[in-house]
C-alpha cells in the first residue's frame, strides 16, 4: 500500500497541468469527477487535457510561491490522485492530430515546479537559495542572512550531477517560477574573455524586455576550456566581496561598486574538474542525483500515454536500466521507437562508461552471482574500453592496504605498480599507442590477487588526506618557485641544488631566523644583537611576514614566501613571528621617515643642479635657458615660501609630446613657444 501511494504521489508530481484542477470550484466539467476528501471537503477533478504547447507557453508565475503552500498543494494533490487511480486507470489517449516535429525531450521538458522528476529535496534547496535573493532583486522581505542585501552567503549556485537528469530544466523552471527571466550561457556560446564579460554585466544590471529581472544560467561550465570564463566569474565574486565589505565606507572618487544583485546558477557534470577549482570555493554546491527508477518510469508512462504508445513495465524497466536512469536518454529512446507504437525489448543499450570507482569495486569485490571466470571477463572488457585505467590503478593502490592482506603480496604488487608507472612515463614521453593494450594488465593483476572481499570499505571515498597532500604539495611547489625567484642578494637560493635547498638549507634557515625560544630571550641576549641580526637577515633575504587572524581570533603570522613549509613552527616561534612583524614594521616606517627627510633636504639642491645643467647643456638651448631664467623668476615671485612648492612648480611645465605618425592615436594640439620651451626645459 505504501509503495502504491508513493507511486501515485510521484505520478501526480509529474503530471501537473498549468492550472491545478482542485482550485477550480465553480463549474463541473462534463467528465469531471467529484471527490470528497477525508476532511469532508469537496473538490472536483478535471481530466487532464493533452498539451501540445511549447515550453514557455505557460503563464508566468510572476509572484512568489511560498514553499510551504507549494508543499501543501502537493499533499492535497497526492491524496486526490491516490483516490482517482484507485478507481480506474485512465485509458490511453489518442495521439495528437497535429504533427509535432519536436524532439520529445524538448516537448516534455518540465515547465513547472511540479513537473520535475525526483530530487524533491534538492529542488527545494535550490528554491530556497533562489528565494534568498528576493530582497536584493525584488525588494521583498526574506530570511535574514549576514549580508547587507540579504543575499545568500555564497553568490553562485553550482549544481552538478550526471547528464540527462534535469539539471538545466530545474534551473530554468525554478528561475521562471520565481519571476526571473532565465538567460542561458552555454558551451555553444562564445565564452572567451571580454565577450562574455559584457554579456554577464548586461545580465547582471538590466531587466529583460518583459521587465522581469534576469537570472543567469551558466550551463556546462565544466566544459569551459577557456580559463578566462572562470576567471571572470571569480573576479566578479571577488569584486563583489570587496565592495560589499567596503559598503559602509566612503568611496568618493572610486570606481562604481560592483555588487552582484542577480542570482547566478552554474551547471556542470563534473564538479571536480580542474577548470572549476578556483570557482568551487565561492559556490553553494548542490549535488543533483539520478531520480529513482520508479519515478523515471512513471514519467515515461505518462509520455507513453500521451503519445499513445503501449509499453509494458518490463520494457520500460529495461530501458531505464540500459540508460542508467538518464531520463533524457529514455525519452529519446521512446521517440525513436515510437513509430512501432508498441515497444520491444531489443534495444540498443547505451554504451556505458563505468566510473573508475565502480571499476574499482568490480576489481576488489567478489561478486556472488557470476563465476570468477565470467567476472574476470567482465572486468577485463570494461577496463580495456576504459579511458581511466591510470586512475583505476591509482585507486587500486589506495585501496590495497585496506584489504586485509599479507605483506608479501603487497610487495609483489609494488613490482606491478612499477610496471604501470614505467608504462605511464613512456606514454608521456612518446607516442606509444601500441602499449595501450597492456595498460589494463596491472588492474587485472590486482583483480587476480585481491578479488575476494565481499565488501569494500568506505575508505576509498575518503580522499581528504590525499586532497590535503595535493594541496600541500602545490603550496610547497609554489613557495619553492617564489623562493627561487626572490629578488635578493642571496644567489644561493637561485642556484642552489634543489636537494640541498629543500632538504637542508631552508629548514635550517627557518631555524636561524625564527628561533624556538621565548621572544624576550632573543631580545635581551647580546644587547639585542640577535634580534637586529634576524631583522637584517630578513631584509637581506627580502622575506615578509604576513599577519592574519585565525578562527579563534589569535594573531598568526606567516613568512612569505612560505619558508615555514619546509620546517614546522611551534607556538613559541609563532609568537616570535608576530613580534618580528612589529619590529619589521617599525623599522620600515622609520626608514620611510628618513627617506622623506632626505628628500626634503635634497630638494633645493636638486633644483640648483637642474638649473646648472640647463645652463651648460648643448648649444641649441640658448632660448631654453633664457626661458628657464624667466620661469624661475616667475616661480620665485609666485611662491618663494616653500621649496616643495618650487618642485611642484617645476613639474607644472612638464610636457610629454608623443607624436605617433601614421597611427590613429596621433596627438594633434596647438603648441606655443612657451609650451615647447617648457617641455624641453622640464626633465622629459
Amino acid at each position, binding site marked *: 500500500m505504501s509503495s502504491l501511494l508513493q507511486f501515485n504521489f510521484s505520478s501526480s508530481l509529474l503530471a501537473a497541468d498549468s492550472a491545478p484542477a482542485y482550485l477550480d470550484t465553480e463549474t463541473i466539467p462534463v467528465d469531471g469527477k467529484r471527490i470528497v476528501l477525508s476532511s469532508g471537503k469537496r473538490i472536483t477533478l478535471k481530466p487532464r487535457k493533452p498539451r501540445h504547447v511549447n515550453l514557455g507557453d505557460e503563464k508566468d508565475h510572476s509572484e512568489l510561491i511560498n514553499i510551504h503552500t507549494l508543499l501543501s498543494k502537493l499533499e492535497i494533490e497526492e491524496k486526490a490522485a491516490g483516490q482517482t487511480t484507485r478507481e480506474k486507470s485512465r485509458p490511453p489517449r489518442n495521439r495528437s492530430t497535429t504533427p509535432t516535429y519536436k524532439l520529445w525531450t524538448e516537448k516534455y521538458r518540465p515547465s513547472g515546479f511540479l513537473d520535475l522528476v525526483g530530487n524533491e529535496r534538492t529542488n527545494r534547496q535550490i528554491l530556497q537559495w533562489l528565494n534568498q535573493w528576493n530582497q536584493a532583486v525584488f525588494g521583498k522581505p526574506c530570511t535574514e542572512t549576514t549580508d547587507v542585501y540579504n543575499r545568500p552567503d555564497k553568490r553562485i549556485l553550482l549544481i552538478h550531477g550526471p547528464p540527462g537528469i534535469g539539471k538545466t530544466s530545474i534551473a530554468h523552471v525554478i528561475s521562471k517560477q520565481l519571476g526571473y527571466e532565465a538567460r542561458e550561457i552555454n558551451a555553444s556560446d562564445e565564452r572567451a574573455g571580454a565577450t562574455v564579460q559584457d554579456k554577464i554585466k548586461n545580465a547582471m544590471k538590466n531587466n529583460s524586455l518583459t521587465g522581469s529581472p534576469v537570472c543567469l544560467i551558466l550551463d556546462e561550465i565544466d566544459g569551459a576550456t577557456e580559463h578566462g570564463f572562470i576567471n571572470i566569474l571569480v573576479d566578479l565574486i571577488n569584486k563583489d566581496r570587496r565592495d560589499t565589505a567596503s559598503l559602509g565606507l566612503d568611496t568618493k572618487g572610486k570606481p562604481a561598486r560592483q555588487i552582484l544583485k542577480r542570482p547566478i546558477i552554474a551547471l556542470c557534470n563534473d564538479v571536480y574538474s580542474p577548470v572549476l577549482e578556483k570557482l568551487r570555493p565561492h559556490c553553494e554546491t548542490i549535488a543533483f542525483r539520478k531520480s529513482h527508477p520508479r519515478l523515471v518510469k512513471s514519467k515515461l508512462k505518462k509520455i507513453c500515454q500521451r503519445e499513445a504508445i503501449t509499453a509494458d513495465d518490463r520494457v520500460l524497466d529495461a530501458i531505464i536500466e540500459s540508460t542508467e536512469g538518464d531520463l533524457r536518454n529514455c525519452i529519446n529512446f521512446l521517440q525513436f521507437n515510437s513509430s512501432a507504437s508498441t515497444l520491444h525489448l531489443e534495444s540498443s543499450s547505451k554504451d556505458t562508461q563505468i566510473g573508475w570507482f565502480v571499476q574499482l569495486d568490480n576489481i576488489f569485490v567478489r561478486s556472488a552471482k557470476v563465476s570468477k571466470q565470467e567476472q574476470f571477463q567482465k572486468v577485463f572488457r570494461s577496463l580495456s574500453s576504459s579511458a581511466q585505467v591510470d586512475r583505476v590503478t591509482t585507486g587500486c*593502490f589506495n585501496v590495497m*592496504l585496506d584489504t586485509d592482506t599479507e*605483506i*608479501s603480496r*603487497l*610487495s609483489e604488487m*609494488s*613490482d606491478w*605498480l*612499477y610496471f604501470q*608507472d*614505467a608504462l*605511464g*612515463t613512456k606514454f608521456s614521453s612518446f607516442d606509444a599507442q601500441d602499449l595501450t593494450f597492456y595498460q589494463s594488465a596491472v588492474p587485472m593483476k590486482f583483480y587476480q590477487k585481491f578479488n575476494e572481499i565481499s565488501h569494500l570499505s568506505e575508505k576509498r571515498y575518503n580522499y581528504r*588526506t*590525499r586532497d*590535503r*597532500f*595535493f594541496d*600541500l*604539495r602545490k603550496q*610547497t*611547489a609554489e613557495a*619553492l618557485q617564489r623562493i*627561487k*625567484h626572490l*629578488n635578493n642578494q*642571496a*644567489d*644561493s637560493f*637561485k*642556484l642552489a*641544488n*634543489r*636537494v*640541498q635547498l*629543500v*632538504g*637542508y*638549507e631552508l*629548514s*635550517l*634557515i627557518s*631555524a*636561524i*631566523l625564527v*628561533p*624556538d*625560544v621565548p621572544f624576550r*630571550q632573543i631580545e635581551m*641576549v*647580546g644587547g639585542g*644583537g*640577535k634580534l637586529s*641580526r*634576524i631583522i637584517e*637577515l630578513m631584509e*637581506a633575504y627580502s622575506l615578509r611576514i604576513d599577519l592574519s587572524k585565525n578562527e579563534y581570533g589569535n594573531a598568526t603570522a606567516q613568512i612569505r614566501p612560505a619558508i615555514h613549509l*619546509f*620546517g614546522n613552527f611551534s607556538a613559541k616561534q609563532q609568537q616570535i613571528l608576530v613580534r618580528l612583524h612589529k619590529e619589521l614594521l617599525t623599522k620600515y616606517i622609520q626608514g620611510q621617515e628618513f627617506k622623506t627627510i632626505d628628500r626634503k633636504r635634497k630638494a633645493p639642491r636638486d633644483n640648483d643642479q637642474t638649473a646648472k645643467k640647463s645652463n651648460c647643456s648643448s648649444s641649441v638651448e640658448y632660448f631654453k635657458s633664457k626661458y628657464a631664467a624667466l620661469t624661475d623668476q616667475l616661480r620665485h615671485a609666485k611662491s618663494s615660501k616653500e621649496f616643495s612648492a618650487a618642485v611642484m612648480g617645476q613639474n607644472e611645465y612638464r610636457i610629454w609630446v608623443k607624436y605617433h605618425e601614421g597611427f590613429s592615436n596621433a596627438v594633434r594640439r596647438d603648441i606655443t613657444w612657451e609650451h615647447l620651451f617648457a617641455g624641453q626645459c622640464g626633465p622629459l
Partner: protein
Amino acid sequence: MSLWADKYRPRSLSELTFHPRISKQLQVMASSGEFPHLLVYGPPGSGKKTRVLATLREIYGAGTERLRVDVKTFSLSSGRKLEFNVISSSFHLEITPSDMGNNDRIVIQDLLKEIGQTESLDFSKFENAVVSPNTREHASSRKKFKVVIINEAELLTRDAQAALRRTMEKYSANIRLILICNTTSNIIDPIKSRTLPIRIASPSTSACAEVLEMILRKEHHARKAFPDDSEHRNIIFKRISDASERNLRMSIMMMEAMYMNHDTVSINTPIIKPDWIDVVHELATSICKDRSVSRLQQARSTLYELLAHAIPAKLLLKKLTLTIWDFTGALDLKDKAELRKAVISASTIYDERLSLGSKDIFHLEGFITKVMVILERYVVIN
C-alpha cells in the same frame, strides 16, 4: 648582512683552508691564465663552488663578484615560454639547466651557442683598474673566453649532454665550461673525456672544526655562548660535522641555528637538524620493528606528508636505507650479512625505479614493503 655560511665564504684561493693541494693546483692554473673545461665534483658542502669562484676571481679579478641576475625567456617549439635565471658578471655566467627539467637541452643549445658565437671584448683592464689595482697584473693577460658555470651537471638530460659535447669543442675559443656536480656517474663519457676532472672531497672533521672555530673567533657575541674550553668546543664541532655528514655549509648553518636557539651552547645541547630527518629515522626504525599492514598504512601517510613538503624521493630513499642499514647492523642474526645485502640490493632496485617512473609514492612504499618482507624472512628463520 648574510648568513655565516655566506659571510665567511672564502673569496680568494689563498683563504681556503682545507685541501691545500687542490688549492695550489688551482692557483697555478689561474696564474697561467689558461685552463681547460673543468668537471668539478664532490659531495655537497665540500667547497666546490667556493673554489671555482675563487679561481675565477684569481683569473679575472674582483669583477667576477659584481653579479646581476637576468631572466631569459626561451620559447619551445610548442609555443610555450620558459623563464630561466642566469646569474652573470662580465666574465662569467652561472646557470642551473636542471631547473628546466626536460627542456634543458634548449638552454644548452640556445644560450651556450649565443655566448660561444660572440667574441667577448676585453674590458678587464678597465674593470680592474677601477676596482682593485693590485690584481691588475693577473688581468693584463688578455682573456678572450667567457666562463660558464653549470650547476647540477649530473641532472642534465642525455639530450642536453649530447648537445653540450660538440659545443665544448667548437666554441672552445670563446667559452670555457665548468661543470659542477655531486657525482660523475650520470655524465656521459664524451663529456668526461673533454674535461679535466677535479674531485673535491668533504672536509675532514678536524678541518670542519677549524672552520667553525675560525668563525666563532670572528663572531664575538656568538663566542660567548659557546663554552670556553676548547676541548668542549671541539666536541660540539665534531657532533655538528657528524650530523651534517661533513657538509661544511650545513655545519656552519647548524652552528648558527644552535646559537640562535640557545643562550648558551654546551656539549649536551641538541643539534638542530631538519625535521624531516627525524621523521624518516622514526619511520625506518618503526618499520623494522613492526612489520604489519597497519604499520604500512601509517608509513604511507608519513611518506605522503614528506613528499608533500617537496623533499626529493631519492633523498628519502637514501636516508631510509641508511637508517635500516644501521638498524640491521645492530641485530643479532646468523645471516646478518645476507640480510643487509638484500636490503641494499632492494634499495638500488627502487632507486632505479624512482628514476624511471614518476610516481614516487608507489616506489617508496614498495621499498618499505620489500624491506618488511626481507626482514620477515630472515628474522622468522632465526
